[in-house]
């Protein structure tokens, strides 16, 4: 075990592993540290690769928006649409998956279960929802990829859907992956490429000397390095705070329900105002999710379980008889504007954020890994990192004061 490296990455979820994967290809000596705390977001994700869906708010965003508007007592409005630049980021990242799947399989033997399917299908139950979709298509340039279907048309694609709907919005080309296998494949490939992996290891705090981050401090050990990458997910804010770096990450809990394995039932991923459903490669259907700000509490609640089950049965009635295998929760790393926080910070050198993946971490992971790695080695990238720098929050705060 080394006590010095070029780069130490704190956090071995999908983002940390993607950064490690990209760095070893650039001949950087990497130590990847992971504690494996309960509630890591990578393990609670459905693995939906929905760049357009998330970008226009029809994927997990619909649920988020609904619960947000319920909280604030606001009238239901447009689902959260992400900035156009980030929409492009997600689409570009998504396009990297086919090749990545092959590479990871070759490199590490891991099958990330990248499953092209019928696409992402948003079920329209109410007029208001149909109205949203129409408005989106009219106002958001990328949303012309959203096709409106009649009930008959959507049944041809998904025969097990309820007939009690007004129609659906189809986003073909939006697929899914196994998020845990993705992280595992990236991690193992990084290890094959020379990265050192320290499992079950917690970073107590970063090591700061003046305005330089010089390494990480573990329980009985320290590792010095040129750059520390903060990929600590929901805990990234805490890690940064350990050396007085501000990083506005808050945990946002998502509960999920997993069914027993069924033969192929859903051809695409489904999204409704109450839940989303994705049938995974082992036949299990993953139903999610909630968006709750409850700190680091990863327990599950009977209300969430009931509500997701109701949502699932409403969309796919045959699920009524299907067994529930397990219910658990993960903590998304939430940021104030729902965009990731990447790159350096003004206060110190030797530190790089790879944080705030919130609800797009999985689909964004390949490109995130790449541009963070490029930024660390000083390689020019055709994807700008500037919009995701942490300083955007203090800039806005400053301008708010004016």
């Amino acid at each position: 075990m080394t006590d010095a490296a070029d780069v130490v990455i704190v956090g071995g979820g999908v983002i940390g592993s993607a950064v490690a994967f990209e760095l070893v290809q650039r001949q950087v000596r990497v130590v990847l540290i992971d504690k494996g705390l309960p509630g890591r977001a990578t393990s609670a994700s459905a693995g939906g690769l929905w760049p357009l869906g998330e970008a226009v708010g029809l994927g997990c965003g619909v649920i988020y928006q609904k619960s947000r508007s319920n909280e604030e007592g606001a009238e239901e409005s447009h689902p959260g649409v992400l900035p156009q630049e980030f929409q492009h980021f997600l689409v570009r990242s998504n396009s990297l998956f086919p090749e990545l799947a092959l590479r990871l399989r070759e490199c590490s033997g891991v099958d990330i279960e990248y499953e092209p399917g019928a696409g992402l299908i948003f079920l329209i139950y109410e007029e208001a929802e149909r109205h949203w979709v129409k408005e989106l298509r009219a106002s958001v340039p990328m949303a012309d990829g959203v096709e409106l279907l009649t009930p008959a048309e959507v049944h041809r694609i998904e025969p097990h859907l309820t007939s009690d709907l007004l129609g659906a919005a189809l986003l073909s080309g939006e697929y899914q992956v196994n998020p845990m296998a993705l992280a595992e494949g990236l991690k193992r490939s990084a290890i094959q490429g020379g990265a050192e992996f320290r499992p079950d290891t917690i970073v107590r705090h970063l090591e700061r000397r003046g305005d330089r981050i010089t390494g990480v401090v573990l329980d009985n050990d320290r590792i010095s390095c040129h750059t520390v990458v903060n990929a600590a997910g929901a805990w990234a804010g805490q890690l940064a705070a350990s050396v007085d770096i501000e990083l506005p990450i808050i945990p946002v809990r998502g509960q999920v329900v997993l069914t027993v394995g069924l033969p192929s039932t859903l051809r695409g991923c489904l999204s409704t105002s109450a839940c989303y459903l994705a049938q995974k490669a082992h036949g299990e259907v993953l139903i999610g999710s909630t968006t709750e700000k409850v700190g680091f509490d990863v327990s599950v609640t009977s209300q969430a379980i009931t509500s997701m089950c109701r949502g699932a049965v409403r969309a796919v009635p045959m699920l009524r008889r299907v067994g529930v295998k397990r219910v658990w929760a993960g903590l998304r790393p939430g940021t104030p504007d729902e965009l990731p926080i990447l790159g350096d910070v003004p206060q110190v050198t030797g530190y790089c954020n790879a944080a705030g993946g919130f609800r797009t971490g999985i689909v964004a992971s390949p490109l995130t890994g790449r541009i963070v790695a490029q930024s660390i080695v000083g390689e020019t990238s055709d994807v700008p990192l500037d919009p995701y720098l942490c300083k955007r929050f203090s800039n806005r705060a400053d301008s708010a004061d004016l």
Partner: protein
Amino acid sequence: MIRRDVVIVGAGPAGLSAALTLAERGLRPTLIDENPAVGGQIYRQTVMTSGTGAIGPSSADGERGQQLRRRMGDVQDKIELLTDTMVWGIFGHKQVAVKCSDGWQMIQATHLMLATGAYEYVCPFPGWTLSGVMTPGGAQSMIKSMGVRPGKRVLVAGSGPFLLVVAGQLQEAGVEVVGVVEAVRRRDMLRHIGGLLACPAMLRQGWQYIRALKQNQVPLLWGHVVTRARGEGLIREVEIAPCDQQWRPVSVGRRTVEVDTLCVGYGFVPRSELASLSGCRMRYADELGGWIPEVDTNLQTSVDGVWVAGDGAGVAGSVVAEAEGTLVGLRILAELDQIKTPDLIRTEQRVRARLATLRRFRRALDQIYHVRAGLDDLATKETIVCRCEELTLEEVEAAAHFGGTTQRSLKVMTRLGMGPCQGRMCWPAMARRIACQTGKRQDAVGPISVRPPAVPLAIGDLLNESNSLAPHAAEALRVEV
């Protein structure tokens, strides 16, 4: 949400004793069990009418079971008995979620007692998934409860006095018991036999089991383990080998025996999932079978108002379970009524004294029979270690190579424990193996991370909160997908 003063989960010896203790003194406990009848595993009620339920030298168990049932008869209407009722989760603070006939119901308990018992520990070996390989307890309940023999030619193997009981029952039921294979070596057993003198009656009972086997010419092989089972789909034969003090099989002296059934078990593992879901602090106690909740001298856990008793709190057998159940009943009574009559104080003292004696006996028994590391050597790389997900040892070890050394990381990397059994069958053996190989302590390797639902239910079962606690109809088909 329904409220109840006392909710007891599990109607085996511990749960029953607690319920009876409370009911006999005027309280009205709610007693929940997933089975159609009370009695747990050991006092499984027989469906036979001809009274052939009590078979063999374990008639002492039969008597105790009858006693409990008689007491039940006396206070029947004072206990809210919910059989065929499953507790699928515990939420918030002692909110017990049960599955009912028309949905599910949440019960807010003031006092929650968990008496969920234990299940048998079988560690993986080649051929253990063949048809005809089962647990000794599985064979026992088939005979005692339904009068069906598990096979014609049976070998009983593993470790623990329970093997002697089951072998005797099989033999009395007319099954050809080709032998009992006990991992503990006779000399290691005799070395600790002094401790067993704490309970001469139990020691005598044990000796009676051994004598009965001798009289029926059933060979008892100390210091041997079953190293593999062979067959094509169905078991055809087993290989037995002598083992060392650590239960590690040696290469010489192996022999093959033809059987059509193998009953194999190496002790018991506490079912402590509900304690985990209740938020109790857990600890690993190898000699008591695995992960159990931390308790004080009153058997209250780290969560106020959550109590545990019986094998679910640490495997110690049915007699201890009864005493513990009685103790918890008395303690809950004291807390609810806040009256400490001299009679109650005396009763409690008696129960505690009995427990102290019993526990001395149990400690000696655990010293003799606790699981040894040599069993890890039985599985080969092709052996399936996760029965549900059909994972081989090789696949799990490959993950360990990439840092998979905790339950959580292995689950994520290999799906170990992602099957319907929720890791109950695979994790205890894998955890011991990993702890041994890495030198980590069990609490670093991790217990099974418990998540609802604790029992199988369908999505449809979770839609509606029911209005009543009506359980399923007892004899009808239980649709439990």
